[in-house]
């Protein structure tokens, strides 16, 4: 089991390394070098940069040297917590990102919880009452959830709420809290705004999970041990919840590993439609204005968070589910 943990962590580190190389490639890809663009930007805003300062900047970023040297210099600075300067905002990247990263994680995590909370009971219901009206209804809703890209869903819900409720449902905070410091009132305000984007984000994944849960449970329900339990006169609720549901949960729980990256990806897009203060809108803006240090940092941080989240969920799963542990030994 220890071997598994070590192997799993090594893979996570390898993944993070690949993501960091890709992020750096994204920073490097646009034509022209960063320092020239930065100096042009500063001169345009009135500040002047002396020749010596320019040389120092070039030295700092290792410009003119091979890709791997530049990458190593960048990586060393990132590990020390220096992610570079955002050209558009003229401030350190970490300052620009601020709370947005944690709000992204919060929304993705809330969506994960909602996905599970919806998919589990609905999946059980659909399997136990197979081919009932409810089953068909949920299957239909599930397919629609699967087919409608979540940004489209956000768009339609925004239009409907504007049309029929006259309210703009975008954002994560009421206007009076938007710039305020963190307080309990602000947290409560956030809690009130969180459900809508989280539900929109969760719907696509929920549909998939319902289908997986339904199929697994249907397989289990046909097993002889269920017939035996019923023949022995166990109450129906216990017959179903005690064994088949637990047995059907295994593949269900392991889907979290690919669900989390999917949710983080999705949150980037719906944040733009619903104008949520997450990293999504920031990433799009920085990419369009070629503010590459900001963009690269966001891609890197999102990637790392996703990998770490997946790793934690895998380890927790192993801790919770004895079958996985036994399989490994």
């Amino acid at each position, binding site marked *: 089991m220890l071997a598994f943990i070590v192997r799993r962590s090594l*893979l*996570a580190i*390898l*993944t993070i390394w*690949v*993501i960091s190389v*890709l*992020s750096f490639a*994204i920073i490097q*890809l*646009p*034509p022209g070098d960063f320092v020239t663009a930065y100096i042009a930007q500063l001169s345009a805003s009135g500040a002047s940069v002396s020749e010596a300062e320019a040389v120092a900047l070039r030295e700092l970023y290792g410009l003119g040297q091979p890709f791997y040297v530049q990458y190593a210099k960048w990586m060393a600075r990132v590990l020390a917590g220096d992610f570079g300067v955002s050209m558009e905002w003229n401030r350190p990247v970490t300052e620009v990102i601020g709370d947005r990263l944690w709000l992204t994680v919060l929304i993705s995590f809330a969506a994960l919880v909602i996905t599970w909370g919806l998919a589990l009971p609905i999946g059980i219901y659909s399997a136990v009452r197979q081919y009932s009206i409810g089953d068909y209804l949920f299957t239909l809703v599930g*397919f*629609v959830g*699967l*087919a*409608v*890209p979540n*940004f*489209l869903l956000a*768009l*339609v819900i*925004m*239009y409907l709420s*504007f*049309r029929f409720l006259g309210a*703009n449902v*975008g954002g994560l905070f009421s206007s009076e809290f938007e710039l305020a410091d963190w307080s309990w009132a602000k947290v409560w305000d956030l809690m009130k705004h969180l459900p809508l984007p989280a539900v929109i984000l969760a719907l696509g994944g929920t549909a998939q999970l319902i289908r997986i849960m339904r199929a697994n449970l249907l397989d289990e329900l046909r097993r002889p041990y269920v017939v035996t339990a019923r023949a022995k006169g166990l109450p129906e609720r216990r017959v179903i919840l005690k064994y088949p549901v637990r047995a059907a949960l295994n593949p269900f729980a392991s889907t979290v*590993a*690919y669900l989390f*990256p*999917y949710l*983080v*990806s*999705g949150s*980037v*897009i719906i944040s*733009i*439609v619903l104008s949520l203060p997450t990293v999504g809108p920031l*990433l*799009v803006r920085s*990419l*369009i204005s*070629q503010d590459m240090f900001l*963009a*690269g940092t*966001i*891609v890197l941080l*999102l*990637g790392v968070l*996703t*990998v770490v989240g*997946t790793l934690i969920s895998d380890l927790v799963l192993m801790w919770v589910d004895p079958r996985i542990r036994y399989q490994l030994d």
Partner: protein
Amino acid sequence: MLARLFGSSSSAEGAAAAEERFAVASQLKLTWWRFRRHRLAVASGIVVILFYLLAALADFLATMDPHDTDARRTYTPPQAIRFFDDDWSLRPHVVVLRARRDPSTFRMVRDQATKVDLALFVEGYSYELFGLFPTNVHLLGLKNPQPSETLHLLGTDRLGRDLWSRLAVATRVSLTIGLVSVAISLFLGVLLGGVSAIYGGVVDTIVQRLIEIIRSMPTIPLWMGLAAALPNTWSVMQIYFAITVIIALLAWTDLARVVRGKFLSLREEDFVTAAELAGASQMRIIFRHLLPSFLSHIIAATSLALPAMIISETSLSFLGLGLRPPAISWGILLQDAQNIEALALAPWLLAAAVPVITVILAFNFLGDGLRDAADPYG
């Protein structure tokens, strides 16, 4: 099983004949019989075919040049086709509201309504049918229109471009981008999945780790980063192919998994051993025996991968990081519907959502049906 396939036959003779037919049928035939039973999948297949027909005939079905802008036509509401005149005589027409500027308020007002007849096979802008035959005939249009009278079945956008025509052309772009991406990722998936299964050992480990790494990355931010780095100077065609490659590069993993799994399980089958003992070469075993037995699985996996590709392209273009105007795709059309002000003013801009949802649903049902049918012996 047999009774379900052929309908219950009452006589023993009929059953025997059915059994005979079942026993000698090829795998493809069995798959087809099985698929035919899945009504929803068959209907979805028809929808998909219709959409590809629309894509092939996009210019013929378009009523106006999709790139033609006109400030006087900004945000024209959709014009409903009316089949009957006031006296209930048959006369297909639309009511065209001509816009003019109010001399006192300087606002555009649409208050001059005229009935304009519709006609089939009218002349319009020039195009090449199937990219081969230059023509200017379009299916539907106005009969002898005045210059200021134009047909807008789904209304117009901010620049006065006809939404129906744009939608038709966008369908072609979005549906083919899915096909090209799926072809690339199919190639990568079959190649890497197959290599991984055949050689095993270190190769297998490397490919499997690679798949795990790609699957644990949040794809959309990466796509966005890569797509944004495409040079501005590239032509529409270059961007189109670059986007398909970017989408395919991160999407082949599912197909590779299917191929590898099938390869590994089939390799243990008796018929493979039999072929080996009969002295068949490795290549012959792979292409004559293994590939046909999981071809249907690949087809099913492909039709399930296609909607994901279409969503990816639509999302990227929607964010302004995929295809760029003057290219037209579903994502680009939806981009116009991005902000609430535009939507409140012109809700018909959301029309582009209808084909997106329909096609993705149809592909999902079709893929489901194919997947069930892929295993006709099960």
